[in-house]
């Protein structure tokens, strides 16, 4: 190893430490900057009528985002209904049934790869499977696309959470004569309940703002989302995209910022709720 003077080493160390503090400050500043722009530009557009009126084409007054907001809630809850139960079951298989280690490893690998898969490909997949054969864009197709994105995330968190439940708990339940199914569902899943809920909510907050898959599945409509099962459905992310890229009008841009602020607030509300849930669990133990 090269011999270096004490002063040189000390100054390199100080420089690196300054850089690392700067890096954190930069990341935090980027976050604050994005939020500041969101509040400054989106706050002006927010009003009660903005949140309660449906969206309207440019030029017609009193446009809002209510239909898109409702559509996003529909699509996201649809994804939860479709995706959560299979994903939790899949996680249970990985955590509780250890008699096929090779298969489990392959499934775990597939889930990890799926987690990093570009979301736009999930949109393509659902387009081919659901939209192209029926010839109809629908909110339901969008829910399926989001469920595909959620599935591996919830599955892996479920496995992690169930693996943290102590073995003695399972053994005592089985020793009392409970069946395997009741042990898993009533004892193991219940004691990991908060963790499971956190995982589900976090993945929901992630897919709620997901845009790319919705471009091929839900499209957009200025109407209320009554056609959830059979036709284009209004939703926030596509509304933001349309208003800010396909419109030259400042009024639409302002509405887009308002919608962006609303979506971010929604996403953060869910995100924070789940984090607090998890923290409480830690305190409880």
């Amino acid at each position, binding site marked *: 190893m090269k011999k270096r003077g004490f002063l040189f080493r*000390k100054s*390199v*160390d100080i420089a*690196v*430490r300054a*850089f*690392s503090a*700067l890096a*954190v400050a*930069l*990341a*935090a500043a*980027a976050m604050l*900057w*994005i939020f500041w*722009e*969101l509040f400054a530009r989106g706050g002006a557009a927010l009003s009660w009528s903005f949140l309660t009126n449906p969206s309207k084409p440019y030029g017609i007054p009193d446009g809002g985002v209510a239909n898109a907001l409702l559509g996003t809630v529909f699509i996201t809850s649809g994804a939860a209904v479709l995706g959560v139960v*299979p994903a939790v079951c*899949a996680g*249970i*298989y990985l955590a509780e*049934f250890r008699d096929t280690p090779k298969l489990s490893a392959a*499934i775990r*690998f*597939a889930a*990890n*790869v*799926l*987690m*990093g*898969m*570009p979301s*736009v*490909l999930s949109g*393509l*997949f659902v387009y*081919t499977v659901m939209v192209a054969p029926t010839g109809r864009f629908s909110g339901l197709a969008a829910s399926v696309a989001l469920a595909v994105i959620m*599935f591996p995330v919830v*599955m892996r968190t479920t496995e992690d959470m169930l693996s943290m439940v102590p073995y003695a708990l399972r053994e005592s339940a089985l020793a009392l004569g409970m069946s*395997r199914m009741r042990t*898993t569902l009533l004892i193991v899943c219940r004691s990991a309940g908060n963790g499971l809920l956190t995982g589900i909510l976090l993945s929901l907050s*992630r897919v*709620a*703002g*997901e*845009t*790319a898959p919705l*471009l*091929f599945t839900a499209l957009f409509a200025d109407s209320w989302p009554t056609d959830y099962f059979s036709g284009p459905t209004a939703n926030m*992310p596509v509304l933001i*995209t349309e208003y*800010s*890229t396909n419109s030259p009008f400042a009024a639409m841009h302002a509405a887009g*910022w308002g919608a*962006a602020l609303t*979506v*971010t607030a929604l*996403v*953060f509300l869910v*995100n924070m709720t789940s984090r607090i849930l998890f923290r409480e669990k830690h305190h409880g133990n």
Partner: protein
Amino acid sequence: MKHSFGDCLFKWGCLFCAAMALLLLFGFFAQLTAGSAEAWRRFGFGFLVSSAWDPVAGKFGALPAVTGTLLTTAIALIAALPLAFAAAMYLTDAPRPIALVLGHAVDLLAAIPSVIYGMWGLFVLVPLMQDHVQPFLVERLGLCGLPFVNRDFNGFGIFTAGIILAVMILPYICAVMRDVFVMTPPVLRESAFGVGCTRWEVARDIVLGYGMRGVMGGVFIGLGRALGETMAVLFVIGNVMKMPDGIFSGSTTIAATLANNFPEADGLQKSALFALGLILLCMSFGIQSLSQYCLRADAVRRGSR
């Protein structure tokens, strides 16, 4: 041990759900391969190296989109990697309350939906790039003498997209690195401090040496995110289907091309878009496999699995 009927059903049901992960992965490949068959038949492997994109003449090639994808990803990694490493280093050593608050701030960057990054990029970053950053880089610093740096700029393009991607992938890389750093045995670090190493030397020689594979896994996870990111890139890349002149020129990425053209495409163009999707899927599959390999190797080394 005797299994009841309910237990059996439960187990097979769970197995079926778990197997859906494999089926989905297989389905992605099958569907994209089937959809792109026509394009591969028509263009063969020339599709990969052709830079034509002319829906009217029916000529398509993947090169511009692939180049744009690789360039934006490269810029994002070059910008995000040192920052993520340094930030992770700071956060592992900082006093607990500070680390908690700042760590959350960095994590929140990952929670912002990508379309919000796109908007921020379009309305805030692009004008800033156009009026201040790019003139400064090109005219003041005279960077246009370098290869791949072009003189004409308008704020949109590969460079801006790369910067946004850097902000987006930083929290992911940083989170994995923090996990790896925290798991370095304290004894190793303390003994290094004991023989008089500075903090930087400990980080470089001990922590990084010990967790190199884990760090690589984090890098690949960030890489995968940057490759497939759609909305943020779509807003600021300029969507030009031709080979870029340099890093300031408008371009496109695979994901942005898909989002932009797929809804209106049909026939051969749709098939070509599926072929692009297949290329993206293969790239992303390769990257994710590598990251899994690295993280697994790291975990095995630590004996935790």
